């Protein structure tokens, strides 16, 4: 089996702030992962479609618009409808501390608010992709 981690970096909704998404994408590439970037202005449903078609190991969603509590449940449901609810999802962006637990309750695996280090993001994605390929994601 190919060991290279395939990750979808996704921008959802109308949010145009892509500095974080592009920096993360670049650093995941340098860490040896295969990065697919959705570009901008995608509905959550479209992101789920791309994730399934591209058969990715992990989805990283970047949101800085404040719409995360509306758009993330739609994305998580869309993945389940595609029987792809097992693809781990992480979120980064401008996320108030009080919303982190709410996102995790939707089965988002981790949240990286502004100021998170690239190293911590890369390490978490490696870990989560590895545990998924061994079938040990809870």
């Amino acid at each position: 089996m190919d060991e290279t981690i395939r990750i979808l970096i996704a921008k959802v909704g109308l949010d145009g702030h892509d500095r974080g998404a592009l920096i993360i994408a670049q650093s995941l590439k340098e860490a040896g992962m295969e990065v697919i970037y959705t570009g901008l202005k995608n509905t959550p449903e479209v992101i789920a479609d791309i994730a399934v078609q591209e058969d990715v190991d992990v989805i990283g969603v970047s949101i800085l618009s404040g719409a995360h509590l509306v758009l993330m449940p739609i994305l998580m449901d869309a993945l389940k409808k595609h029987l792809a609810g097992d693809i781990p999802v992480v979120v980064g962006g401008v996320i108030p501390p009080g919303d982190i637990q709410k996102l995790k309750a939707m089965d988002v695996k981790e949240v990286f608010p502004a100021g998170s280090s690239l190293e911590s993001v890369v390490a978490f994605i490696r870990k989560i992709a590895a545990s998924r390929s061994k079938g040990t994601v809870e």
Partner: protein
Amino acid sequence: MFEAKLLEEIRKAREQWEREVQSGQGTGPERKDAFTTMGGIPVKRVYTPEDVAERGIDYLGDISFPGAYPYTRGIHPTMYRGRLWTIRQFMGFGDPRKSNERLKYLMKSGAPGLNVAFDLPTINGLGSDHPLARGEIGRDGVPVNSLEDMEQLFDGIPLGEVSTSLVIAYPPIPSMFIAMAEKQGVKPSQLRGTFQNDSICRDVGANVRVVPRRAELKLCVDVVEYATRNMPLWYPISVVGYQIREKGCTAAQELGFTLADGIEFVRAFVQRGMDVDSFGPRLSFMWNAHNDFFEEIAKYRAARRIWARIMKEKFKAKNPRSMQLRFHTQTSGVSLSAQQPLNNVVRVAVQALAAILGGTQSLHTNSLDEAMALPTEEAVKVAVRTQQVLACESGVTHTVDPLAGSYYVESLTKDIEDEAMAYIERIEEMGGVIECIESGYIQKEVTKAAYEYQKKVEKGEEIIVGVNDFLDDEQPNIKLLEIDEAYERYMCRAIEDLKARRDSKAAEEALDGLREAASRDENLMETTMTAVKAYATLGEIWDVYRERYGSFDEKAHITGL
């Protein structure tokens, strides 16, 4: 500026001093092998008159007096001794009624300049009821779908007495604003304020694109042409560097890319048949105020010098006011930390001081909670008070451009000017700023700079207090503003209600008139205004534009990755 004999004496004394420093007499090693500005410009241990002389900086030609060409020291002879800058806080959230309350709160707090942010659907030309607008209503600005919403937004605010900035481009929202003011009894000729109206900064800086680039430019030129004829007190465009800087470019790149953006617009206005001195005095700019204090001050000074020369030499402006670069500043949002958020008050104060020492005409100070959410009233008040403390208590307003003549600041001003000019020349050689966005050149330069900066943060070469050093486990205990989803339901219902109540025949006819004008490539301000007054909605008006010009193809856009 200095006589050769004196310079020679200074050189000898400096060399002696350096030998002593190198030999370590009375001092240990320095903390780093090399020091640079945040943008990577090398910074020497000490600057002397030699640095000013070596660069050929001439007092009368390059620095001169405030209010005198090339305006390095400021555009007004008396600057803040005459009039302080305008405290102009950017705001907008929830719905028009909620934002109206915040506008009035700001005015009451002593922030007289109004500055309205519109939400993502509105700036993307989509109604609140569009599928892509889901979850976005009122989160990053105020939603405005119709003239009715604009009336609610400015209800009870006397537009003839205040100055208003609208962070929006293209004819629809300006038309709603002008039509609303007319209903208040204020004529376009009496209105004071600014439309941001810079499609290029929105495109490359904020990724806001509605129709193809040349069509977006045309729609911005329509607004400027209308305002140049009808709104003599209005600034119909603010060429913006703020967003691209937030995206990660350096201070010198912010200047280079943005002044190239300004050149592209001036060229477009001239091609439309406008005389450079008809619109030149009504151009304005907007800059970021980031962390590196002296680099930012040097940036504002260099910006004025470059623009004055471009307008005079390249575009042959005759009116001195056409050569004066006037600007709004906003402190850097991206520099704020979610960790230990009270530290942000200090960051904002330092950034604001740089903007003031750089001679800004108006200023927005960010609030301490903005790395997490839109600001609460309490947080906004601290931001406003920060400006008032600087204005009233620090004494920096007593003299004009107090840093002029600093060997370091003058050298750095020249460094930034040279680097920015090199970018401007390269962009012009490559066919102008739109060509350079279409080829991906600018996006790649910005992403590269952002990534390099982030790597420095990762390695601890750049310290961000509370983020990669001086950490603690304390969770911030501050109340954040929450945007209720009820706003979204309200705005969608309001569109339905409006469509049921309005004279639909009049709205249809007005939209047909707009469609015809668009097919003839006329200036669309007047026909858009007619549609607005017939209560056609923002979404309907943009549908007509999209019919004519097509939608921007996001999938074909080069991201800079």
